């Protein structure tokens, strides 16, 4: 019996490792190729750092990166703020149409990006005439990132100890002061976690951004996409390598923030 279990465990282990290889092999490959001397970036011809040097002196990449960072930065701040307010409101208040509102908030997440992107493009160009570029991109990002923030923060709120807030209010603190001194700090880990999840979402979004970006506002994903048509290029390998490395760092950071949050509550 025990032996049988061992064998089952071994088989599962092999399957799991194969799945991991499937998920990771392409990424590891481009990471390796980013240091390869090959002009086409799809074979190994000796070690070099020149693609990284090229990446950091490439104006197009730098502009695209700056644009993506600005967009993601603004989006994170506004979407997290809206997400926190909405989650608090949905949690605390009971009113007619709440269920409907919750479902409506989900729409931008459940609709395919091409639908959201197409609808916003038509809306921006044919109805309200919001200039395509930063304004349209940032609005679009807020539209699809806020719902994410709402449900991440709402999820955490449901596991909260709310008696602290009640105590503060009972002891005569104003609602504003209560939020600032009691509820806010308690919510901080949830807010941080949502911000850290939204940032890559916004930074990495290609489809919706592509629809509403118009001409000349190339974000990093759009730059990568435009380069893809020419096949493998070493510069994209370096971008990919940095992307994965930064994601890993971010993941570790989120892990520690969550751990901090757990130990403080």
């Amino acid at each position: 019996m025990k032996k049988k279990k061992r064998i089952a465990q071994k088989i599962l282990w092999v399957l799991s490792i194969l799945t991991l290889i499937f998920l990771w092999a392409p990424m590891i490959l481009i990471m390796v190729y980013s240091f390869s001397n090959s002009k086409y970036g799809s074979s190994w011809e000796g070690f070099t750092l020149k693609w990284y040097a090229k990446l950091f002196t490439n104006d197009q990449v730098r502009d695209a990166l700056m644009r993506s960072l600005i967009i993601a930065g603004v989006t994170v701040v506004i979407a997290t703020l809206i997400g926190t307010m909405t989650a608090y409101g949905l949690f605390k208040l009971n009113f007619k149409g709440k269920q409907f509102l919750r479902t409506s908030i989900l729409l931008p997440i459940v609709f395919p990006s091409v639908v959201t992107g197409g609808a916003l493009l038509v809306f921006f160009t044919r109805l309200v005439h919001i200039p395509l570029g930063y304004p349209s991109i940032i609005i679009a990002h807020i539209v699809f990132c806020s719902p994410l923030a709402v449900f991440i923060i709402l999820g955490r709120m449901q596991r909260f100890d709310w008696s602290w807030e009640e105590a503060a209010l009972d002891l005569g603190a104003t609602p504003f002061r209560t939020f600032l001194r009691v509820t806010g700090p308690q919510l901080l880990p949830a807010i941080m976690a949502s911000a850290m999840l939204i940032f890559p979402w916004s930074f990495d979004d290609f489809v919706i951004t592509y629809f509403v970006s118009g001409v000349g506002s190339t974000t990093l994903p759009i730059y990568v996409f435009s380069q893809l048509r020419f096949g493998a290029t070493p510069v994209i390998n370096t971008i990919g390598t940095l992307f994965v490395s930064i994601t890993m760092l971010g993941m570790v950071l989120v892990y520690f923030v969550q751990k901090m949050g757990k130990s403080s509550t």
Partner: protein
Amino acid sequence: MPVLDDVSASQSQAQKREKRKLALNIAAYLSPIIIIVIVFVFAPLAIILFFGFLKSGPYGQIIYTFTFENVIAMMGGGYGKVFLRSVYLAFQTNFLCILFGYPIAYYIARFGGKRKILWIFMIIVPSWSSYLIRLYALKTLVGTKGTINTLLINLGLVSEPIQILYTNFAVTMALVFAWLPFMILPIYAALEGLDRSVLEAATDLGATPFRRFFRVTLPLTRGGLLAGSILVFIPTVGEWLVPSIFGGSKIMMAGSLVAHKFTQVGNIPQGSSLAIMLAATLVLILYLTIKWGGREALEKAL
């Protein structure tokens, strides 16, 4: 009598005050999201619903006459086929993700031990690193001049590069590659939440491991499967990048059709009606899922 009147009057006044306070609170906390939902979600959807019934002129301008042309074009022939293929591919991807995702989720939950965090980390990182870059990486691996072909030729196993790109196989593989992590994580979460004593009870009562898995474990992790399926199925139906990178012009999906009409052809009426159709398909599927599995599954998925 006057006393009673007084009481009821103050009661109704208190009720009014409560009501006003509630309205004020709703305005304070929820007005931004309500504005977003109305202005930037409902209004754009309404617009494309309206445009979907209009005509497009030869230079991409919109002719404001009401027509069912787009809808009829969708029902018959090419477009309908693309939609059917999208739904089929999404189901297939979903099934394959469960097939490949369940074993690893099960392994991590039961035998992960001290390395659990590491395993989960190895699955979360691909799910959060750039989607576009991951697809590009996969293309580097399987392309005509990609690593696999170069390797096969150098080893002398084949003389000509095998055509992997632009086949059904490539699209399916890329879809599974892209969405597998989103299936593994909810299944893992469901398995973690499993009450071990139920499993022990099943064994004590004489269930074989095989029977125990199919009669106890699998039904109890239905929530996770459902959540994962929502996360995988929805984006797959509307997929644009995977078919355009791995399917070329040969294998179109609903998402690539919509994107094509909007961004390349500039035919807004047709793009709109296709987008509405896609959204309607998803809403229908989602509605059935919620009815079957409860809305918690949907919100848990997020």
